[in-house]
Structures are given as C-alpha cells and as structure tokens.
C-alpha cells in the first residue's frame, strides 16, 4: 500500500485545506451535527434548499484530513442537486467505501473518486463517511419541510 496514492492524494489534501465551504449558513437553514464518538470528529452540516433543490451547503467542525476533505467535496458536489440526486450520491459514496463498488460520479463530483483509497483503511472509512451519514439524516429533514435551524 502506498499512503500517497491511497489516503493522502493531492485532491484530498487540497480539499482538506480548502476553506471555501467551512462556514455556518444563516437561518433559515437545515443543520445537523455528526459525531464519530470513537475518534471525536465532530462536524455541523448546513444546507439551504429551495423546495427540493439544494441551493447551498457548508460545514464547520473538527476532524482529520479525510473527514474534512470528504465534507468539503460533499458540499461542492450537492450544490444545485435535487434531494433525490443527493441521496443517490450518498449511496454511491457508501457503496464505494463499504461495498467495494466503483461508481460513476456526476459532473462536478468527480473529486470523490479520490477517497476510494480510504476503503483500504477500514478504521478511516468512518472518517470519510461522517459527513455523508450526516447528510443522509439531513435530507430526511429537508423532505420534511421546515428547517430546524429556524427555531
């Protein structure tokens, strides 16, 4: 195994260092916290929608490079998506990391291929998945309607 190819590819490090999506979004907003209790990674995912279309996404929090890079790619990828597309993307990322699949990613989400190497490091998979699991729960809320961040 080669660390640079698997875990720390340049795309991952770039996404890790990117500050573009690292901020809170203002109310009204859907937001959800995600925690990996065993390692302490802890992020807050924000999402704005216009009906079923995701208009903006961002996050805050602490986490390792894999966790943060993955969350950043997530935000880049889902902006402009329909909630169903976003849900499908969650499933594709999970498939890649836990079911050994090699999915095709839609335009604008190609960076996600870079995290495939994480699958070789079972204990880091949860780092990469934290934001996606959080998104999954958040999308249910979006479908529900009212942003909880409102209250």
């Amino acid at each position, binding site marked *: 195994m080669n660390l640079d190819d698997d875990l720390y590819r340049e795309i991952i490090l770039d996404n890790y260092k990117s500050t573009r999506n690292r901020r809170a979004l203002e109310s009204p907003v859907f937001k959800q916290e995600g*925690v990996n*209790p*065993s390692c302490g990674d802890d992020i807050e995912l924000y999402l704005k929608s216009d009906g079923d279309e995701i208009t903006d996404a961002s996050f805050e929090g602490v986490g390792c490079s894999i966790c943060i890079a993955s969350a950043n790619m997530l935000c880049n990828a889902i902006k402009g998506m329909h909630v169903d597309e976003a849900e499908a993307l969650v499933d594709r990322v999970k498939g890649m990391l836990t079911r050994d699949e090699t999915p095709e990613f839609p335009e604008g989400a190609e960076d996600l291929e870079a995290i495939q190497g994480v699958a070789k*490091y*079972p*204990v*880091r998979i949860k780092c990469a998945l934290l934001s996606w699991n959080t998104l999954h729960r958040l999308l249910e809320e979006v479908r529900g309607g009212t942003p909880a961040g409102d209250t």
Partner: protein
Amino acid sequence: MSTTSARTSYDLERIRGDFPLLSSTMRGNPLVYLDNGATALKPDPVIDAEVAYLRDISANIHRGVYELSERATVLFDQARDKVKRFIGAPSDGEAVFTKSATEATNMVAFGWGRKALGPGDEILTTELEHHANLIPWQELARQTGAQLRFVELGEGGVVTAEAVAAALTARTRIVAITGMSNVTGFMPPVTEISRLAHDRGAVVLVDGAQLVSHHPVNVAELDVDFLAFSGHKMCGPTGVGVLYGRRALLDAMDPLLYGGDMIVRVYRDHADYRGAPERFETGTPNISGVIALGAAVDYLEEIGMEAIARHEEQLLEYALGRLDGVEGITLYGPRGVRRGGIVSFNLGQVHTHDVGSVLDNEGIAVRTGFHCAQPFMRHLGIHGTVRASFYLYNTRDDVDRLVEALGRVREVFG
C-alpha cells in the same frame, strides 16, 4: 469404539479429532467428558483463533489508526456479525458482548428493569431457572417493589404454555425463562410463551445458556425480546457471553458499567452516551475471546446445529434406555417431551460427590451437586443430582463407559 452412529450426519471420528482433550486421559483412563452443561471442550480452530490474536495482533480495538488495531477491530466486528447471524437476529436486533450469560441476564434485570418496573409489577419466572436467571430478578424485585412470581411446574419439572398463561397477569412486565433446563434438558415452548407474554404486553427474556449451544436458535422465530448466552458452552472460550436484544429496548436501557468507548462526549459533570451495542461495552473487551467465539460459531455452523441437536437427541435416548436398567437409579426430568442432551440422576443414597469421585477415577467427568438450581432441587426434594450432559463429540461408547462405572460406585458404596 462404536463412535459412528448410523444416524449422525457428520463424521463423528473426524470431529473428535478436532478436540485435543478427547485423546487425553484422566486419572489414567481415557477421558469421557460428560460435563458439557458446565462448559464445552474447545476445538482446534477456536484455540487457533485465540492464539492468532494474541500472537499476531495483540492490539486494542476501535482506538488505533494503525494496521494491527484495524485488524483487531475488523475481526471483532465480524465476530458480532457471525453471532447475530447464528441466532437469526433480525435487523432491528443487536448483539452485545458481555463476560458471561450471567452478566447478560443482569444487564436486562438492572438496565431495563430498574426503569421499567415499579411496586406491584410482576416478574414471571420458573423454579427451573439457573441462579443466573433467578437471583437478579429477586434483587430487582427487592429494589423496585415488584413481585417475583413462579409458573406452576408440571410432572418432572415441565413448563407448559397453559401454566404460563395461568400465571400471566395484567401486571406481568417480563417473563424470564430458561430455553433449556441445565438439570433436565427440558425445553419450554418458548414461541408459545412469547406469544402469550406479548399478548399481555410483557417482555420476554430467554436464558439461552444451554439452548443456544445445543439447538438451532432463531430469535425472530422464537419472537423473544432478549436472549442471554455464554461462549464457553458453545465451544468458545471463557470470559465472553452475549446479550441479544431488540434494538428499541436496548437503546432505552441503562448500562451496568460506565467508562470509555460508550460515550459521545464527556464533560466534567456529565456525559452523553452512545446507543447499543457500544453503550453496553465500555472498557477494553475480551477481544481474543470475542474473536474466538466467532471461530466457534463458524465451527458449529459448518457441522450444522440441526445435525448436532439430532445427534444429542439420539444419544439421550440411548442413555435413558441404558440408565433405566441401572439398579437403584432415580432419573429426573420428563419423558416423552422435547429435551436436550442432559440426564440427571441419583444412585440410591450415595452422595452425588461420591458418585462423581468414583466416576472421576474411571476417567469420566460428570457434574454433581445442585447445578446452580437450588429452588429446583428443593422442588424435587433432593440435595443434588449427578448430571451427564452430551455434546456433538460424545458417543454411545461414552454412555457405555458411564453405565459401567456406575457399577463401580455400587461396589464401593455397597
């Protein structure tokens, strides 16, 4: 040796070769191990799994980002999946690793019971129970003001669905019952009991310490809410047990122990806890034991629990037939009903320990005494029994050796 029975579907001779102790001697005689009710012998694959962890991994789980820890974690998680599959756990069920069946019943008694029970509520159990499924409930009743009630036992210590129905009331909150008596091998009709209990809104805990090791078990079919069992009785190592539970019940339970790995966040004065199974597995678990239990599950599944149960059933029949002919013997337990491979008996007035010592000297390991079931002994009006309990590797020859050795007991104690 008449080790091959026409009706045993697996190769008994080959299986026996997997258990190092079966080719050893005790007090100078070839070992006949008939104390499987207390604990089972360990086959090579289980011993190997334990050693493989200790020699080649050694690391703690869930905590390290390095390869050794990763391997430990993966094997540990796989063992949980194996155990869940072995008992047919549905997707809304979870398996918690404990140190023993005893810890598992206690987890429910105190983690669930302290919250769920109040004065006047009832806990329904039987006098057949092993102390591990009785004393926690006594203690819970004392702490909560709930009442401990007993199902009326039938002839030979039988529990019928009718007797359970008669004992259930609107206040019954839990039915805690053995899946298989460790004294007589009797197997209560758990599926029917679950249905009756659920109709009354009660939760069902089955003590599966004997059942799970000897019979195919599917918790979804049995429709039980909790199932407690031990690894060491199913060819696994000591120091590991399992509490199966419905996730919704588990997630609402308090843990017995507090510490690391069960938490989301910890502050100076309080902490947020995780759900099942983590909430109930604080502290470094018995990693080698859990992994080796996974190997035991693989081993048993490859032979097949159906085949094992059938083999033991035949052996029991043979043993009952032969023992019936022993002069001065009193055999306990019901006839003509579903029973696991356990026979309990007394030989005239000879104390069970004396019988045990004579058998020991002939190379035969049996269990003697009250079998952690004093209320049942009192029900039978005796102080103890001699118990022979079978497992997948026992043979008719073992039974013959037992019967022969009982002759020696009569010689010594006239």
